[in-house]
């Protein structure tokens, strides 16, 4: 089983982000970066598949700044075999450019499975996985919460949680899958893994990126929430509430 997992370095959801002075990027000073949590599910799933098969290779691929090597090391510490960083100072706003660079790297890798997180928690785009599948002409199942592979490396079944039910999808290998929460419980990197990760190969090469069709023009923080209003008490307050919901909040 040869599995590639594409991961992204993202700001920790617990850090309070600030917009930089250029008005279109994040001020990275003091921001802690982590392995995108959805990608963590993908890494864990790849490791479990390899462990179950008893043989194989898990390759971590990331496109990002030099510091993303640390993010790749985290995945290596969890147990992945080697890493590739497609280095760039700035991750393009256009997901298609990221997908093209990743697809070029993955194309001749001979992977049975290519895993992604269903989205990155910084840009919420949900794009790169399916785009890579399309560029490589592979079947793609997004946001999977459960995975079964047949023993013969020919295909598998994935489950997606959809509104009000579960969708069961069959696919042949090789395939591209994107991971949702619930797929598994990612492991903590053991100290032995952290030690071993130091010695695992990590290949760094420049990412070749096109200009892309999108330009990030501005980033704006959400408007501050205003304080609530108590319009009265008991049934007597209902007409006033309705009036405000209709005329001020304009939700009715």
């Amino acid at each position, binding site marked *: 089983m040869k599995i590639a997992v594409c991961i992204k370095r993202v700001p920790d959801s617990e850090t309070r982000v600030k917009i930089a002075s250029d008005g279109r990027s994040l001020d990275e000073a003091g921001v802690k970066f982590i392995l995108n949590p959805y990608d963590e599910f993908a890494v864990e799933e790849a490791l479990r598949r390899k462990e179950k098969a008893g043989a194989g290779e898990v390759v971590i691929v990331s496109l990002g700044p030099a510091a993303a090597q*640390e993010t790749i*090391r985290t995945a290596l*510490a969890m147990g992945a075999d080697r890493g590739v960083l497609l280095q760039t100072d700035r991750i393009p706003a256009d997901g298609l450019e990221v997908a093209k660079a990743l697809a070029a790297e993955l194309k001749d890798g001979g992977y049975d499975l290519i895993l992604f997180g269903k989205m990155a928690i910084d840009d919420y785009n949900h794009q790169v996985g399916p785009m890579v599948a399309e560029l490589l002409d592979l079947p793609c199942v997004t946001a999977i919460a459960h995975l079964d592979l047949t023993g013969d490396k020919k295909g598998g079944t994935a489950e997606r949680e959809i509104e009000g039910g579960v969708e069961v999808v069959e696919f042949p290998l090789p395939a591209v899958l994107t991971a949702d929460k619930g797929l598994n419980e990612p492991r*903590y990197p053991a*100290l*032995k893994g*952290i*030690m071993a990760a*130091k010695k695992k190969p990590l290949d760094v090469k420049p990412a070749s990126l096109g200009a892309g069709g999108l330009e990030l023009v501005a980033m704006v923080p959400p408007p501050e929430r205003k304080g609530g209003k108590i319009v009265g008490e008991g049934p007597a307050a209902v007409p006033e509430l309705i009036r405000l919901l209709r005329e001020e909040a304009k939700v009715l």
Partner: protein
Amino acid sequence: MDDSLYFTDQHLQVRDMVRDLARQVIRPTARRYDLESQFPWDNVKQMADLGLLGIPWPEQLGGAGMDYLSYIIVIHELAKVDASHAITVSAHTTLGTSPIVDFGTEEQKRRFVPLLATGKVLGGFGLTEPGAGSDAGGTKTVAVDRGDHYVLNGSKIFITHAGVGEIIVATARTDPAAKKTRGITSFIVTKDTCDLAEATRVGTGHDPTLPKCPGVLTGKKEDKLGWRASDTRELVFQDAIVPRENVLGQFNGGFRHMLHTLDGGRIGLAALALGIAEGALEECLAFTSTRKQFGKAVASFQGVHFALADMATEIEAAKHLVYHAAWLKQTGRPFKPEAAMAKLYASELCMRATIKAVQLHGGYGYTTEYPVERMMRDAKICEIGEGTSEIQRIVIARQLLGDLID
């Protein structure tokens, strides 16, 4: 403290992992273990699997092969959320395992260290006796030479892991005629865990193939103010039979070994105290910035600013003392006074900071709904265990005065 002063990328990776574990697994369960005074077997098993019970020991001995700073980072991070978990790792590692690594023969290391480093069994250190606390040289436990084995009689008190542990390094008098501190020897004693069912269930804490010494008994469990999830008990030797090959280190040199072990242990305890204090500060920041009185967040009052600023400043000072002492030890430099100073300062700060933390939480801080009351209870023992604050001052003064007096 600038992270890059002492820490490599690998240290930060270890810190991130333990921080996640502490927040996600230990913090949500700590209160229940404390309330019920239960040893946290499930969490100990997980810590063992992650390699946290053998951090600084070589890989050939089953350890993680990391450095001493990594170990200190782990104690510091665990204590931020729960001191009982931190002392479990610390007592097992510095008190239980390090004497065997430091003074054991190759054969003893090969036999005992892998079991301890992998967390297969838990270890401890039996020094304190009812009549020999601060005055540890006053050991009354005796060991009598019977050829291929020794017979031990006596009792140890307040021993961390005397119940759950299976390998305990204990001191006993081997030369009744010698001057107080001279005729003491260390022994590796083995016994079955008192919690066989739990140890078997989680798969850590018991090795049926490890030969046990008959006559080593576990006494009553202490009902404590703090560290309630840590196992503290009496350890009784009743005609206990300890094989000759379990004599640890130099015969009649046990007192010196013990002092060496405690010197290192102090840095660990200092890191633990620092962790409690820092955890308490984090709780205070979260609470005072959300709790509103007089129409404002409590944290917006200047009186509260001063309290938070003082706490943070003292914590920063303690951090430097702790990591500097750890760095001295790691790099093979003398560290005795620095370790005692770190322990003294961090543990007294920890008490002050946690009392302040309860105060800043008002009535909420006095209830078990918030962890600061537990932190305050957990803090006190840091001024007592592994040498009281008074004893630390004696150690420091002795280093200062040296041969000038006596």
